[in-house]
């Protein structure tokens, strides 16, 4: 992890030329960054205005009728914010935990027993399945689990489906990590000392995979948190909605009440932005190293 965070060592600006070049680079970056976050700033300045003020001048920093906080409680109430936030949290955390644990276990048994045909077959199927777009699976999925088995409309179903869709890529990443980072001698020593495979895995192998675990947990959690299509097919009942579904339903109902919409959008973005504020180093490092391995 530290390696991927290690920067190209900042060259000490020696000559005036380098100093000027660095100054220009920083100026360009600041302008670009402002452009990048402009949409968010726009939401932020409008969320504290009344509906009329947003309509008359969306670019003004402060509305004519001044500063208002009314949009928030109103939107929270109509969106059922705490319920959908809770749902998103339950689904994301459970699916991420299960994906990490199941994938690491599967990768371990596949890497350590290259002679077992069933393992090679499963791994080959997983790798091949990565090119299947979700659109090909959504109709049969609804048909089998909705029409035949009738298990849709439950959080557990959604969580298990999320896991099923993400184990292939995650197992693939763990597979590479176990191959390169876990020396087999350690496990041999443990086995001579009478350690079962199960205990060896949890006490020796899994702790050694921490960097990979961080990476896959971040990548998967972000995907689960933001996913719209699968939850929208699985969850029909209002009280099970996750944030993206609730946002869409809310917009469909209140799209003309722009002040409320601003508040709802900000609420939908806030949890992950706050988390990012604290974890950005890990997220950036995790995504970077995940990209290199994946």
């Amino acid at each position, binding site marked *: 992890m530290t390696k991927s965070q290690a*920067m*190209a060592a*900042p060259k000490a600006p020696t000559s005036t030329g380098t100093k000027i070049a*660095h100054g220009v680079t*920083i100026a360009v*970056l600041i302008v*670009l*960054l402002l452009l*990048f976050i402009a949409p968010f700033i*726009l*939401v932020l300045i*409008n969320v504290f205005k009344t509906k009329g003020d*947003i*309509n008359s*001048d*969306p670019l003004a920093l402060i509305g004519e009728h001044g500063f208002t906080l009314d949009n928030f409680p109103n939107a929270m109430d109509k969106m059922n914010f705490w319920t959908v936030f809770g749902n998103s949290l339950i689904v994301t955390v459970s699916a991420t935990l299960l994906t990490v644990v*199941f*994938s690491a*276990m*599967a990768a371990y048994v*596949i890497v350590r*027993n290259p002679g077992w045909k069933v393992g090679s077959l499963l791994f080959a*199927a997983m790798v091949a*399945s990565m090119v299947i*777009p979700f*659109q*090909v*699976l*959504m*109709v*049969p999925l609804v*048909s*089998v689990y909705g*029409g035949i088995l009738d298990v849709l409309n439950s959080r557990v179903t959604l969580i298990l*489906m999320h*896991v*099923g869709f993400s184990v292939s890529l995650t*197992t693939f990443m763990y597979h590479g990590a176990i191959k390169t980072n876990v020396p087999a001698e350690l496990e041999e020593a443990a086995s001579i000392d009478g350690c079962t495979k199960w205990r060896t*895995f949890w006490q020796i192998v899994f702790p050694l995979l921490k960097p990979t675990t961080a990476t896959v947990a971040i990548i998967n959690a*972000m995907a689960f*948190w*933001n996913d*719209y*299509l699968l939850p929208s*097919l699985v969850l029909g009942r209002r009280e099970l909605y996750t944030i993206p579904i609730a946002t*869409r339903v809310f*917009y469909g109902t209140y799209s003309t009440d722009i002040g409320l919409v601003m508040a709802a959008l900000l609420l*939908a*973005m806030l949890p*992950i*932005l706050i988390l*990012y504020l604290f974890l*950005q*180093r890990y*997220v*950036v490092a995790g*995504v970077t190293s995940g*990209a*290199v391995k*994946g």
Partner: protein
Amino acid sequence: MKTNKLSYKMGQFLMFAGPAGILFCAVVIVPFFYGLYLTFTSWDGVSLEKPFVGLDNYAAAFADTAYWSSLGRTVVYSVISVILVNVVAFFLAYLVTSGIKGQNFFRAGFFIPNLIGGIVLGYVWKFVFNRAFVSIGEALSGTAPGSLLSTTNGAMFCLILVSVWQYAGYMMLIYVAGFMGVDNSLKEAALIDGCNSTRAMWHVVIPLMRASFVQCIFLSTTRCFMVYDLNLSLTNGEPFSSSVMAAMHVYNQAFVYKNYGMGQTEALVLFVICAVIGALQVYFGKKGEVAA
């Protein structure tokens, strides 16, 4: 310990790979093959029977002009977006690896759009295009211009702009990793040998970053090609269904018009295209790699 008995092996395998394997088969393998069967039926999504219709769905899919135009539109959108995403991402990566202060701050900042899902981003940008841009236009010209989202080409432009903005930060991180993987001494050697820095970049650094390029192009292509969330919230296919992308068309065919068999058939054609893109990526990734 009998570690070579078949029952022991099976037990071990099921204990470790069972949960992942069973879930994976349940949501990927079974639906995939069941989906193949569905393409030969005409199912309305409600009735218990699924009448067998042979190749009718395939014939209908090939005759479905709306589908092919949505595919063509998706190709145009993907090509333009992929080129722009990678140009912008490479440029950003170049700037944030140039050794200035606060590099990490900028990296984290450009990555922000990736944190937020396509649905929310689409609505945020809808506000930007419909209100802020219109308001700026009014201030500049004195008359209120229409929103970009209300014209055919405008809606396409908006989709491309938002996609580039959304993915550039993510691809930037991959290029940053690529830049950091290139040994500085190689570039220095080129400079000493009389290359100017542009030529050193073009002939030394970029060829060594081949893997990053292949990866970014592949990732951005698959993401753009399967775009759905953003399409739904930003344009919803409007105006006059002129911005319906392939994924949205497939969704509507199945779940809105209830032609499940036909929707599944059209999705399968998408899969074949994706598989070809995937195969090409592997082929080009393996071919012509330069050794440092």
